């Protein structure tokens, strides 16, 4: 059943907008380029879809309906609530452009830049339509189907970012004697990965910030189109590498959604345990690094000790510490090992001590409080406009959490709370994460207690390798085995958006299948991409040292940001 807000939308716009059938859940509306802005605005203002999750495009070149060639996709969701809606619009081939919506949502600014960069669709009246992930001198648009994946370009000239900075500083170039331009990153220990920001300083006050991303762009989405659906799983490990198992789950869950598969109860519960351990690891890294940024170094070791403990358990489970590659479409790579339970018990026993230690060290510490309270604050409206999700949005007081809004894997059956802040500043972001770790521990404890028995792989010929013993004896099993390996898993043709609540927020995968064993398109919605787009807003007017503290609290993971 559709929620009332969408029904109202349907009846209001009957006639002007076509609803397309979508076998995979979300409502899909097709808008004409001329109506696009009105449709999106109406969804935002009158129907509560205030969160623009992602903008992307599909190149239909190799699909049957290749005229017009590009289909631009807007994915929306209410900031609290479960239903999701996609508005799709095909710009005409002759003039590959659409009106921008970056004035309606700040999130659209970077999202549209990415579509322009990867597909070459332009957005009229966009304030700053330049490449974002690829190098400024890059020729062509890599995600177009006719762009050869093996093609190489030699690009060495860095972008000085002065085009953007000049715009921000205004015309009066000569009078700027007081201000100093400072380039921070991309290789700077305080920038947490290959991020770069050019700041305009007046004394120690940041007047303007121009961030640059893309230093770790390695073409995840293009590589994903090259192999089978299973081949993508190890690539997802490298998105948010602090909690790679969460990316595994997010991706596999989307493909399972397309195939109409529910994992077995045991697999679901194991996934919940790992998701929450992943969340804890991610938050540990984020909080620990953030505390280092404000000078509280010892906390780092205390928190990393606990992370180490979790890594030990996960290593015994799947064989790797960082890039777990543990989840499979329809199941898991292995069942739990003997000793997993004790390992988790150890974590649940020791982690609260470490958190208590850290709390004792910083909670009343004057220096710490002065460095983080009120620093890098953002209001809920602005955060939503920027496309914040996860801890950063919850710190602003919005109880946005997919685990509650759209419970999957039985999250509604556990007793836990969504943690929200009040001010949306660095302090709240740290503390939301600290408390979320405690909630995650509660979920892990409950999940371990109820851990059901049974298999971890679904019994479905389309996805699961038959048991080895059968492969030898049974010709049908042998054929099935080789079909899955040689041709891959084949989800039905169509477009599907699936997401989970990852450590940083909503991690979405927009997957297009053409019915073959190769993904036609895999687009990631990395939560920190949108969070980082608000970086200038969070830092301008603050002090230079606050910029570092704020950056740490956003937990920007370059692997996920740049893909």
């Amino acid at each position, binding site marked *: 059943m559709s929620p009332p807000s969408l029904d109202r939308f349907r009846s209001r716009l009957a006639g002007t907008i076509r609803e397309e059938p979508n076998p995979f859940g979300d409502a899909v509306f097709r808008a004409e380029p001329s109506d696009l802005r009105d449709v999106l605005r109406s969804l935002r203002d009158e129907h509560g879809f205030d969160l623009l999750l992602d903008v992307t495009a599909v190149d239909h070149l190799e699909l049957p309906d290749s005229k017009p060639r590009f289909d631009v996709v807007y994915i929306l969701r209410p900031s609290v609530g479960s239903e999701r809606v996609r508005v799709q619009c095909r710009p005409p081939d002759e003039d590959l452009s659409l009106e921008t919506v970056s004035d309606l949502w700040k999130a659209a600014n970077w999202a549209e830049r990415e579509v322009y960069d990867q597909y070459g669709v332009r957005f009229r009246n966009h304030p700053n339509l330049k490449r974002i992930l690829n190098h400024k001198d890059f020729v062509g648009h890599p995600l177009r189907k006719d762009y050869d994946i093996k093609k190489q370009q030699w690009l060495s000239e860095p972008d000085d970012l002065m085009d953007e900075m000049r715009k921000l500083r205004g015309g009066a170039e000569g009078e700027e004697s007081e201000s100093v331009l400072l380039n921070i990153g991309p290789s700077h220990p305080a920038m947490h990965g290959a991020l770069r920001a050019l700041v305009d300083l007046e004394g120690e006050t940041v007047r303007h910030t121009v961030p640059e991303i893309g230093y770790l762009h390695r073409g995840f989405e293009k590589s994903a189109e090259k192999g089978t659906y299973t081949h993508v799983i190890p690539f997802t490990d490298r998105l948010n590498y602090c909690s790679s198992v969460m990316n595994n789950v997010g991706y596999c869950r989307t493909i399972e959604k397309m195939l109409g598969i529910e994992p077995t109860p045991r697999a679901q519960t194991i996934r919940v345990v790992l998701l929450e351990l992943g969340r804890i690891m991610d938050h540990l890294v984020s909080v620990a690094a953030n505390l280092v940024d404000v000078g509280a170094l010892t906390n780092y070791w205390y928190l990393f000790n606990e992370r180490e403990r979790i890594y030990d358990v996960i290593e015994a489970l799947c064989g790797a510490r960082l890039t777990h590659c543990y989840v499979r479409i329809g199941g898991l790579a292995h069942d739990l090992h003997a000793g997993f339970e004790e390992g988790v018990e150890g974590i649940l026993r020791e982690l609260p001590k470490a958190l208590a*230690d850290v709390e004792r060290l910083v909670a009343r510490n004057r220096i710490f409080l002065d460095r983080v309270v009120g620093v890098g604050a953002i209001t809920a409206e602005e955060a939503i406009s920027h496309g914040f999700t996860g801890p950063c949005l919850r710190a602003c007081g919005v109880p946005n959490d997919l685990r509650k809004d759209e419970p999957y894997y039985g999250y509604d059956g556990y007793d836990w709370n969504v943690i929200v802040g009040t001010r949306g500043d660095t302090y709240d972001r740290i503390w939301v994460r600290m408390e979320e770790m405690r909630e995650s521990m509660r979920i892990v404890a409950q999940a371990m207690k109820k851990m059901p028995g049974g298999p971890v792989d679904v019994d479905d010929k389309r996805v699961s390798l038959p048991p080895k013993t059968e492969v030898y004896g049974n010709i049908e099993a042998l054929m099935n085995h080789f079909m899955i390996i040689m041709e891959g898993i084949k989800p039905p043709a169509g477009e599907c958006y699936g997401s989970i609540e990852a450590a940083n927020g909503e991690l979405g995968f927009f997957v297009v299948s053409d019915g073959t064993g190769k993904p036609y398109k895999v687009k990631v919605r990395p939560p920190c991409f949108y969070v980082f787009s608000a970086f200038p807003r969070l830092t301008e007017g603050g002090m230079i040292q606050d910029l570092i503290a704020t950056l740490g609290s956003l937990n920007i993971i370059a692997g996920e940001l740049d893909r």
Partner: protein
Amino acid sequence: MIAYVRNIQDACASIFDGMAVTFSHLFRRPITVQYPDRIPRRIQETLPDRTRGHLEVDLDICISCRACEKACPIECIVIEDVRIPKDSVAGVDGKETARVKEPTRFDINLYKCMYCGLCVEPCPTGAIRFTKEFEGATDDLSRLHLRFVTPERREVVLRKGEGYEREQAEKARKKAEAAAKPEGGKQVDPPAAGEESKEGDKE
């Protein structure tokens, strides 16, 4: 004024709190170990069973089915093989599996490998598997290009392959003779079937 005094109080208290916490850590067991050489056993021996270290292949039980080659997302594994007279091998779990091909080349590019494990899962005999070895640091990349089929082994396999060709040629000749007696002109498999299927497999 009260707030001011409380601030000072807090500041002092938090220093002692901090000292207490830090001091208590002096007496906790360290969670890390000295690497490489401060523990009595080799570090590899302490790793869990599922550790995904360097790959190895047991060629004696590999049936050259190329499932591992296909399963690898980044084409680390390169296999070339020939048809051999049919025999069978015992997989790691003791099950017999028929073998009709044997590799003349089995290379794994460890410097490309991401140790994801996708190649190990589909192997029907368990020939390809992870070891616990992880110390691959080297100044010579070619050392990480593992070639499992030695030249000597290649010779042996090639001879087996020739045996197969001879067997096929013999069969074809007999068949043709038998066919020629009553009517003749019946189509038989070309003798070089092994070579052809190898070319086909590559695509």
